[in-house]
């Protein structure tokens, strides 16, 4: 511990802390340009100069480590002058084209010059220009599909290059030339094209790197930032929607160190066009004479409820079925299952439309293997070994991918085993390619290698010797030996793989969609658990098997009981369980199910056998689809109800690690569309049931009461990053 004084205030900090961090703790602001706490400190901008007693020259606060008895001044005339000087130097070559610059209004340089800079310039010479096209006056250059560079504005802090190199682990952005001619550029004709490129626009303290989609759209001060959660994947990054009136202009990160550490992938950052898309459903549609035509809400609701009642009355409530979705909020899902269980009176609900091979439903008590993530996202970066199995992490979970890269930077080993090569293989100590559907054979090979070479930790694993013998017999059978040949992985590869595994202090295994929808998914997951046990990591903090769901609220959908055999909170159903999606399709074919209500899902595009689904769903008397766009499934529907996008409703998403996060409404649902929960309420009320929820808050309150794993969560504090609810 070190005691030092900053501006007359004493503070005790840990050894190795920088002056900047210590000042931050005291609430003293030291301006910076090149500093970013996720990046290596370079001390390039000299903006954070402070006076340290007994050191004749000013020191950079970001890189100077504190020492005992240090006396720091951040407001002395010398410091003030130095800041003024640094800013004047920066402005020598800054074009001051703030009126056309998209950063104007949130520019760090603008702000700091306002606060610390001089109000006049002494510079009369011409300014530096990086001429892109000699014929044009404008030096903007598109350096990637999303990024536009204007080097004239650059202050050479190199945060962008450092981000791309360190955080994203890419090398498609670099610094060229030297001194005042320093240029941030791509390699010739190789545009910056990685899924994290959008972050450089947010990181850039000036308008040197700006995003193409936001280019010249609106001034930032005319927009309003709504804090919410990204709907693209299950990682649940915290975002801000910048909107004006009924339109989203851009999305930026709302830093949450537990989830995203302040970075977003390009899909989340730029993929919001669907919200304001002209093809959005605006009115309810009813199929009349083979053609979908617009109908008013009351007529549609009446039509739907009377058909439902009719079918229920004729052939019983089990001839209706509901399909939920991992893309809508917990509240909508909760209401959906409540609608089916209490209003219709059937357990025929499911949301798993993307796979024929379903994992068993989890239980509250056991919360067993087949359930989401065992570890938190943050723990991934702390693990010594990460095994990515059957997952293109960069595409499926870009933010978890960043943690893996971070772990790699910290010195952890990365093992990747996939049917196809992924971009993560660059970092892999051992990147294996097995043939598709041979995961079990491959894992058996690995287990056998461990057992045969006696590399397992007998004490820690907790296996009895007979159990080990069973396992050995299983993996060493002649069948499995032969099968190993089919995986296409050589014995020496398995050996080095096992070497890495047994040496690691902690192991995190990440399984993607490939494993979850695998026909042998249960077997694979069991093998992985055996692997963790054999290496003695089953009870360790930074170890475990993690299944990564696909959709933004897949976890929450499970939690809310969109399952044929579980109520919200995985409470086992007392009576006969309902049908899952596969069985529903069979029942439709047998004529047992006459009506289906699909909310937010698109089985036609997601289910492995498209033609089968298409022909099956076509047999339904009533196919009610509730979505925001005309999906493939909606095209064959009898009735379509227009729902609201994530920006248009309140609610909660539970991300892949079980973190319940709040979505906030940015604006009202488009045209005549309604929030999904509201539509369900309308249907239930039309069928004579009291669904009196005024806001999603009421629904969430009921959910916390009903579901044991959500109990105690508080809606009001849910959105604050420090207090986010975590599923128990």
């Amino acid at each position, binding site marked *: 511990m070190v005691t030092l004084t900053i501006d007359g205030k004493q503070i005790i900090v840990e050894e190795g802390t920088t002056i900047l961090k210590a000042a931050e703790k005291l609430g003293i602001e030291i301006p910076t340009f090149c500093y970013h706490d996720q990046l290596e400190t370079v001390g390039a901008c000299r903006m954070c100069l402070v006076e340290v007693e007994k050191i004749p020259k000013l020191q950079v606060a970001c890189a100077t480590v504190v020492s005992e008895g240090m006396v720091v001044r951040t407001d002395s005339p010398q410091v003030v002058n130095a800041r003024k000087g640094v800013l004047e130097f920066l402005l020598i070559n800054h074009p001051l084209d703030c*009126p056309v610059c998209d950063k104007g209004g949130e520019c760090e340089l603008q702000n700091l010059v306002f606060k610390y800079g001089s109000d006049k310039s002494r510079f009369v010479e011409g300014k530096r220009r990086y001429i892109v096209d000699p014929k*044009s*006056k404008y030096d903007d250059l598109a350096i990637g599909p999303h990024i536009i560079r204007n080097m004239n504005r650059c202050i050479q802090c190199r945060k962008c290059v450092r981000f791309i190199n360190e955080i994203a682990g890419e090398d498609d952005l670099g610094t060229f030339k030297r001194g005042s001619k320093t240029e941030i550029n791509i390699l010739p004709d190789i545009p910056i094209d990685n899924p994290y490129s959008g972050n450089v626009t947010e990181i850039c303290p000036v308008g040197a790197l700006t995003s193409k989609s936001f280019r*010249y759209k609106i*001034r930032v001060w005319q927009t309003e930032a709504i804090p919410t959660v990204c709907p693209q994947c299950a990682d649940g990054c915290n975002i801000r929607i910048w909107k004006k009136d009924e339109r989203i202009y851009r999305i930026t990160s709302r830093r949450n160190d537990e989830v995203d550490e302040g970075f977003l992938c390009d899909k989340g950052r730029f993929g919001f066009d669907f919200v304001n898309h002209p093809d959005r459903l605006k009115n309810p549609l009813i199929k009349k004479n083979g053609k979908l035509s617009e109908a008013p809400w009351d007529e549609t609701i009446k039509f739907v409820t009377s058909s439902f009642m009719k079918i229920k009355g004729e052939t019983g409530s089990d001839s209706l079925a509901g399909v939920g979705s991992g893309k809508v909020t917990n509240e909508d899902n909760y209401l959906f299952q409540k609608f089916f269980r209490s209003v219709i009176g059937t357990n025929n609900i499911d949301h798993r439309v993307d796979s024929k091979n379903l994992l068993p439903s989890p239980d509250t008590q056991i919360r067993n293997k087949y359930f989401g993530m065992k570890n938190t996202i943050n723990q991934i970066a702390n693990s010594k070994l990460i095994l990515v199995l059957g997952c293109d992490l960069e595409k499926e979970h870009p933010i978890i991918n960043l943690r893996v890269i971070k772990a790699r930077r910290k010195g952890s080993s990365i093992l990747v085993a996939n049917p196809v090569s992924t971009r993560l293989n660059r970092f892999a100590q051992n990147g294996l390619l097995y043939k598709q559907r041979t995961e079990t054979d491959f894992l058996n090979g690995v287990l056998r290698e461990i057992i045969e070479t006696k590399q397992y930790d007998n004490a820690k694993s907790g296996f009895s010797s007979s159990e080990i013998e069973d396992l050995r017999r299983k993996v060493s059978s002649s069948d499995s030996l032969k099968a190993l040949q089919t995986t296409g992985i050589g014995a020496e590869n398995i050996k080095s793989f096992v070497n890495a595994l047994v040496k690691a202090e902690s192991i995190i295994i990440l399984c993607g969609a490939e494993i979850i929808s695998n026909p042998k998914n249960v077997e694979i997951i069991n093998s992985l658990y055996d692997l963790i046990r054999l290496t003695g990591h089953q009870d360790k903090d930074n170890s475990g098997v993690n299944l990564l769901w696909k959709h933004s609220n897949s976890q929450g959908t499970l939690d809310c009981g969109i399952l044929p055999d579980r109520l919200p909170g995985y409470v086992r159903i007392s009576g006969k369980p309902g049908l899952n999606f596969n069985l529903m399709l069979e029942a439709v074919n047998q004529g047992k199910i006459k009506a289906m209500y699909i909310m937010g899902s698109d089985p036609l595009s997601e289910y492995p056998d498209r033609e089968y689904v298409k022909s099956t769903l076509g047999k339904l008397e009533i196919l009610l689809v509730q979505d925001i766009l005309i999906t493939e499934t909606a095209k064959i529907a009898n009735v379509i109800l227009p729902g609201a996008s994530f920006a248009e409703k309140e609610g909660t998403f539970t991300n892949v690690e079980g973190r319940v996060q709040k979505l906030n409404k940015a604006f009202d649902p488009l045209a005549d569309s309604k929030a999904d929960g509201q539509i369900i309420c309308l249907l239930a009320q039309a069928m004579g049931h009291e669904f009196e929820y005024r806001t999603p808050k009421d629904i969430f309150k009921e959910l916390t009461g009903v579901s044991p794993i959500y109990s105690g969560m508080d809606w009001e504090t849910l959105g604050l990053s420090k207090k986010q609810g975590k599923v128990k």
Partner: protein
Amino acid sequence: MFEVFKTIFLAIPKGLSVTFKYLFTKAITVRYPEQKLTLSPRYRGLHYLKRNEDGSEKCVCCGLCAAACPSGCIYMEPAEDEFGQRYAKVYEINELRCIFCGYCQEACPKEAIFLGKEYEFSNDQREKMIYKKEDLLVSIFGQRMKRPDARTGPSGGVRPDEHSG
């Protein structure tokens, strides 16, 4: 009683004499359409948007005028032209809402918007009081391109910065 007499015999005649004197002073009325006041050089009338010497619009749609506007009467939408330059795709001023404070002119970093000397642009349709960019733009010589159809006043072609009085 005394006060009353003082009022009647002193104050009222005095007041009457004052008003009587004014009866013969020259009226200061300006008979408007025929005579016009000489405008102050700082008079703030109808806005106009200037052009560069090469004929391009000076306005880059930075939005500072709209931000400075206390009555919120300026609406704009930026866009990118074929040279990659920012320009105002839509630029509208609601002259009914405008209070002619001149803050927009003061805020403009490109010296593009000015408040001219025109004040005769009343209209009997509200929609016509929302001035589009074409209505506001002037030529490089300062001539207004499209004249607002004022009921009274001189016909088109007057420079908006000229004294109309």
